[in-house]
């Protein structure tokens, strides 16, 4: 299995480190040609406006909108995956049927960390929120995995995982294992359809 990490800007090497710690291969993706040959894609934390502009400029947006790759977005990556963004006319990749609100916990002075329970996982996750978004609404086929103070901060659908915080800033492999399992299921499904 090969997991790509979109490497236009942000916490790229942290995600690569955690994927490798899970025993899988991780490669940075800087150009669209590199998307072929990966089985799942991570959209890292960073500045969502910056990533969005660079994705548009280099043709990632069009290709990823059509793509059936499993994707995992953290913070800025979650915003990129959302179908709707509060205050914007349209979402970017539109992969997850959710509405997100950007910087919804405030500015950097309000950024925080917290131990959070995650549905279906025994150990609590150390969640680092940095100028983080939260999920206002979820649509059909979207399961809520975690909340803080009543706000949804982690969700999944069949092929997409989106969280408001940064597991890549911790040593916890919880979410990366979770995503790798999703990719495995997807690979098996594609294989059986292919036969």
């Amino acid at each position, binding site marked *: 299995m090969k997991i790509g990490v979109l490497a*236009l*800007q*942000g916490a790229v090497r942290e995600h690569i480190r955690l994927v490798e710690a899970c025993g899988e291969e991780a490669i940075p993706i*800087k150009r669209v040609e590199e998307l072929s040959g990966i089985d799942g894609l991570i959209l890292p934390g960073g500045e969502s406006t910056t990533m969005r*502009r660079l994705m548009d400029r280099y043709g990632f947006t069009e290709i990823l909108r059509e793509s059936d790759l499993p994707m995992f977005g953290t913070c800025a990556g979650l915003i990129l995956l959302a179908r709707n963004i509060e205050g914007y006319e349209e979402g970017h990749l539109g992969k997850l049927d959710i509405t997100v609100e950007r910087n919804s916990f405030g500015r950097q002075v309000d950024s925080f*960390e917290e131990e959070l329970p995650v549905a279906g996982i025994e150990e609590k996750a150390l969640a680092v929120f940095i100028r983080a978004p939260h999920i206002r609404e979820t649509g059909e086929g979207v399961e809520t995995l975690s909340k*803080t103070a009543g706000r949804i901060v982690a969700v999944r659908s069949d092929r997409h995982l989106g969280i408001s915080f*940064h597991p890549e800033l911790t040593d916890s492999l919880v979410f990366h294992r979770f995503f790798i399992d999703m990719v495995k299921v997807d690979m098996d499904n594609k294989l059986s359809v292919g036969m």
Partner: protein
Amino acid sequence: MQQTGTERVKRGMAEMQKGGVIMDVVNAEQAKVAEASGAVAVMALERVPSDIRTAGGVARACDPRIIEEVMEAVSIPVMAKVRIGHITEARVLEAMGVDYIDESEVLTPADEVFHLKKDDYTIPFVCGCRDIGEAARRIGEGAAMLRTKGEPGTGNIVEAVRHMRMVNNQVRQITVMSDDELMTEAKNHGAPYDILKEIKEIGKLPVVNFAAGGVATPQDAALMMELGADGVFVGSGVFKSENPEKFAKAIVEATTHYQDYELIGKLAKELGTAMKGLDINQLSLEERMQERGW
């Protein structure tokens, strides 16, 4: 329980800026140009460094009205500078909700002996450094991010290159040093022992280190990435150039794709003239901003 202002939260904010460009802006209009070009943050100030040089006199923290105007204009993080050691300027910016403070040698120092004790604040700080001693002292005081000092406002990359190479070289030496050599190394650099020990253990600086001070072209930005910078600050380089919009975009792209020389060549074409440069040797020791900081 939600904990704000932790080391992880402050350093993490800088990690998210990696691979990006932070641009100096003096008003809302420039901030919007920076954001549209793909900048990861803006530094709000009254004058860019090259104008500070020309104006002379005492350079202080920016008028809060300009900072507020910039904060309202863009959704990317907003940074602002304070004078070295100016506790109150820093507390005021923190109270305003600025995202990051640069305790900067570009402004006239308020204290010629002590820097701010930065781990007391909820807001993260970035500081300049020329070598491992300065880098480790600033980290020891609580800086969550570093940048080279370079020589601000000159459009001359030579000092930023010197400082990036120096810090990275010294970090490499520490990583292969034996434990019994480390204390003397700390003494020789005037560096906190614990920070050097941490560098040796993790094999790199514990915070990100951006390039700053003299970046004037897309090639300059890419060069600094090549030399191991985590990202780039552009001060006078963007808005003192002939075509700021194009320059800003080109510098952002060159930073992302710093080893794609064909692309950088394409970007550099039709950019117009870069800011006017200054030879470092024409600056007296007193005129060199990099000499500030202790």
